[in-house]
């Protein structure tokens, strides 16, 4: 039997190798000579932290107990990886574009950078992973104990303690060395890759030894398998499906898997290789599990622990070297898992629990005044130590008794509760923060109640609750929810918790409304292939670049911060080292910082610097509302001012009109007074003549009196006309509508107009209309016609004056033309002939010049018009009438 001390030395030597590999890798990464370290091979190998000590040792034990069921643990991840094109690829793309630091960060980022959600996921992860870490400690001590059967120096609990301490030291040394913007840990990843090779080689070596060394070849092994107690297919169908699904879900949701698969991913194209290479690794890891189990069952005495067959078979056969290699394989599995898990959890704890609390305690400007960088690193170190301590305590409390596989599955089931929120967040824009939180709470609670608490037992749940349900409520028994009994506990718990988790998540998401930031992030996540730009949220007009620089230095270190800012300045085309705090730069900075301290914290820190001018989307919306109000107000003002100017213009127009009218009135008055004055003068002159002259003959008296009378008549006529016109113009005229033939009206007008004249003009009427019946104010119409005819009588200067009255029809209107054979009206006077007091020639002044003006007014009242008719030989007027006057 190998000396226990030699084994410990080998182990320590191996740890030294790991340390140096990690150290060299970190140095290479720091100097940029790490091209091959960033290869798809390393990426694929680093994913092998999925295979923990549980799968290294436990798979054989699992196979020995329940046949091929162990393989479901590998089939789930295989299915996820061969479907990388539509699942993992999106996750990696989002992780890279949003600079996600952990699964909690991703969930929080997706749901509006909600820190509550991040805290919740962190707590869930810590609760689920701590037993898992203690499982690894247990496997290390268990495997050591296999070597130390009769060595009295061996003490399992102190081994576990030192293992925990060593692993914590490694994780702290290489996991919290720097605060990189990418949160990549080249050293750790390279060491993990090396360990992946060691564990694969170890398991393959043991397998080859068993198959060809002990069994004598493949056919013999197959025969032995069929002859063994697990020689027939007897897998539980529900468990087969459930565990495959669970393994697939956990593969995506486990913080350590997320760390190596998404956060440490250097190039999305690595997935093209990892998509098939990792399933190949898994297949190789599980290839010899069943042969080892079967041979172990045959070879080793009854009652020996099947979990340790990988170690005890070589030991039994005296192959100490192989046993040591196998031990190193198991040791690698345990250490790599613990290191990465502790690292991933510490990032989550420090970014989402410690930093927000610290920031809120430090109050204003904390991000500048304190050394954030040290703070973050310290919090991570303490988190790692705390997680390891928790794991160790759990190991001590549980006593290391439970079969390894069951704790692993319990952890998987817990971590799988993140799946609905994750998948919903990646593919469904309608998923909301409230929905995700409620789903997680329900799933987490059910998992605790149905699996974790009954599983770890030891008085966490009273026996009565397990047997009869809480408060005796039968259908709430942890292993038989809703009265469905007889299910396997894992199947039962996973089915109910994930089903209700997803249902609540969907139902609450559908019935709640996401905040603007949430919707923005949702669109960015779901449509990550369409646009990878982040929302611009910072209004940096008051941001102090120097403050930002100081803060960034504190988080990322001086050199990196300077390089970052210089790059920012360069991008802006500036020569200096300080870029303008443009929104683009701030957004860039926020994402870089998010890589170190998480999205929510980075957002809060930049918010503190940019301070009062930091603008959340909600603020932006408020501003938008305000400006919308402002715009509305100003548009109202504008409308008012437009109305005012319109009113002013109207006033101006009215004023002009009034002035015009006033001028017209003045002109009219002077006209009127002039018109009145002429007859008055002659009346006065003749009446004075009659009064003062003694000897007036009878004839003279009569003649003078006749003149006075004539002038008085003229005055009366003038006044009548004026009165008539004013009535017409003011629109107060009352129309006396009657129906009658137009011909009669014309006849009457002709006879009236020509009565008493010495040489009456010859009138010729021509009618082209069949039906001359019109409905109008016939008296007024007569007045118009009389005026027309007497005008012709007065002004027609032909030797043989003749007036032709022609009546025609134009649609529903009747046109009456008065055409004489005189000289007509000279063209320049034709426009003004209808104005008041307009007279074509002074020498033939017969009237006051109001006749045509009155005619025009009358016709307007009657819905017609009068105009001068051009293109005729003599004077010609056209009167247009409507057949029916509408009042």
């Amino acid at each position, binding site marked *: 039997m190998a000396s226990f001390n030699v084994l410990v030395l080998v182990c320590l030597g191996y740890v030294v190798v790991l340390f140096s590999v990690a150290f060299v890798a970190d140095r290479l990464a720091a100097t940029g000579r790490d091209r091959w370290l960033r290869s798809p091979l390393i990426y694929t190998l680093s994913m092998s932290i999925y295979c923990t000590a549980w799968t290294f040792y436990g798979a054989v034990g699992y196979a020995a107990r329940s046949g*091929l069921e162990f393989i479901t643990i590998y089939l789930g991840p*295989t299915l996820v990886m*061969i479907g990388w094109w539509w699942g993992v690829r999106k996750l990696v793309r989002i992780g890279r574009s949003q600079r996600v630091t952990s699964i909690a960060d991703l969930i929080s980022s997706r749901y509006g950078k909600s820190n509550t959600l991040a805290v919740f996921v962190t707590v869930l992860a810590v609760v689920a992973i701590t037993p898992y870490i203690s499982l690894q400690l247990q496997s290390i001590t268990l495997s050591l104990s296999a070597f130390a059967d009769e060595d009295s120096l061996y003490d399992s609990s102190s081994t576990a303690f030192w293992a925990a301490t060593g692993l914590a030291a490694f994780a702290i040394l290489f996991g919290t060395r720097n605060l990189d913007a990418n949160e990549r840990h080249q050293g750790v990843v390279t060491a993990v890759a090396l360990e992946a090779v060691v564990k694969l080689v170890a398991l393959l070596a043991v397998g080859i030894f068993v198959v060809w060394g002990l069994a004598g070849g493949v056919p013999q092994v197959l025969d032995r398998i069929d002859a063994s107690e697990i*020689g027939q*297919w*007897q*897998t539980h169908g529900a468990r087969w499906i459930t565990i495959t699904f669970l393994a697939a879900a956990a593969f995506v949701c486990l913080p350590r898997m997320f760390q190596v698969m998404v956060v440490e991913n250097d190039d999305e194209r690595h997935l*093209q290789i990892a998509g098939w290479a990792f399933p190949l690794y898994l297949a190789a890891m599980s290839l010899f599990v*069943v042969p080892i189990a079967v041979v172990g069952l045959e070879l080793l005495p009854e009652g020996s622990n099947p979990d340790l067959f990988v170690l005890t078979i070589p030991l039994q056969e005296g192959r100490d070297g192989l046993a040591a290699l196998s031990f190193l394989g198991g040791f690698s599995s345990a250490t790599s898992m613990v290191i990465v898990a502790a690292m991933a959890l510490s990032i989550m704890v420090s970014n989402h629990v410690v930093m927000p609390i610290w920031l809120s305690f430090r109050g204003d400007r904390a991000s500048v005044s304190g050394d954030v960088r040290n703070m973050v690193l310290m919090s991570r170190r303490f988190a790692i130590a705390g997680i390891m301590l928790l794991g160790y305590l759990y190991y001590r409390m549980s006593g290391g008794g439970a079969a390894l596989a069951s704790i692993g599955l319990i952890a998987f089931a817990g971590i799988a509760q993140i799946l609905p929120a994750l998948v919903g967040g990646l593919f469904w824009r309608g998923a909301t923060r409230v929905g995700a939180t409620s789903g997680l709470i329900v799933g987490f609670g059910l998992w605790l109640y149905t699996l974790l608490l009954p599983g770890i037992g030891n008085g966490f749940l009273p026996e009565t609750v397990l047997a009869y349900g809480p408060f005796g409520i039968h259908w709430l028994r942890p292993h038989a929810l809703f009265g469905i009994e007889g299910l396997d506990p894992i199947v039962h718990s996973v089915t109910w918790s994930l089903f209700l988790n997803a249902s609540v998540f969907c139902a609450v998401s559908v019935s709640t409304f996401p905040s603007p930031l949430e919707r923005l992030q949702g669109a960015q996540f779901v449509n990550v292939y369409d646009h990878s730009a982040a929302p611009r949220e910072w209004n940096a007009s008051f941001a102090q670049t120097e403050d930002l620089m100081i803060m960034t230095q504190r988080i990322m270190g001086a050199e990196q911060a300077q390089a970052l800012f210089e790059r920012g300045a360069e991008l802006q085309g500036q020569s200096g080292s300080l870029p303008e705090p443009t929104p683009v730069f701030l957004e860039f900075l926020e994402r870089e910082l998010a890589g170190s301290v998480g999205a929510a914290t980075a957002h809060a820190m930049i918010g503190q610097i940019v301070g009062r001018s930091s603008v959340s989307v909600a603020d932006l919306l408020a501003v938008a509302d305000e400006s919308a109000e402002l715009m509305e107000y100003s548009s109202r003002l504008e409308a008012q001012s437009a109305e005012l100017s319109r009113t002013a213009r109207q006033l101006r127009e009215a004023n002009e009109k009034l002035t015009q009218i006033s001028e017209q009135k003045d002109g009219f008055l002077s006209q009127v007074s002039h018109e009145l004055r002429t007859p008055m003068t002659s009346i006065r002159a003749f009446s004075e003549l009659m009064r003062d002259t003694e000897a007036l003959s009878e004839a003279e008296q009569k003649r003078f009196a006749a003149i006075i009378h004539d002038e008085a008549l003229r005055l009366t006529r003038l006044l009548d006309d004026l009165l008539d016109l004013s009535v017409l113009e003011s629109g107060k005229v009352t129309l006396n509508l009657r129906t009658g033939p137009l011909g009669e009206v014309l006849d009457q007008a002709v006879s009236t107009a020509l009565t008493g004249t010495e040489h009456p003009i010859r009138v010729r009427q021509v009618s082209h209309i069949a039906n001359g019946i019109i409905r109008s104010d016939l008296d007024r119409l007569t007045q118009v016609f009389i005026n027309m005819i007497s005008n012709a009588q007065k002004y027609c200067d032909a030797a043989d004056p003749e007036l032709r009255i022609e009546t025609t029809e134009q649609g529903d209107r009747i046109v009456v033309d008065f055409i004489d054979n005189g000289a007509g009206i000279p063209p320049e006077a034709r426009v003004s002939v209808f104005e008041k007091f307009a007279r074509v020639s002074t020498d033939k002044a017969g009237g006051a010049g109001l006749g045509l003006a009155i005619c025009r007014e009358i016709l307007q009242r009657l819905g017609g018009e009068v105009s001068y008719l051009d293109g005729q030989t003599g004077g010609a007027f056209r009167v247009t009438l409507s057949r029916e006057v509408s009042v």
Partner: protein
Amino acid sequence: MSDPGSRPVFLERSGYRRRRLADAAFLLPILGIMLFAVPLLWPTSPPQQDAPQHAVTMSDAILYIFGVWVLLILLAALFGIRARQWALDSQEPGAR
């Protein structure tokens, strides 16, 4: 596949192939799920029942599972290598 009568434009053709290959990549995990679910149809042999001739032997089960596994790995490798070639052809990784 190839039609000598009409010569399709090279780009269109390769784009078409890419899309179909991406479709295949979509279907690959579904194929995997179905093939890995086949063992559910196998008769199980509870210890009490004495019907060993109906039960599937463990060696057959192992051969089947690993056979499917290797098939899936090969198909995924085929797709992964092709996807890598596209990325090299056009400098656009992960064309949709």
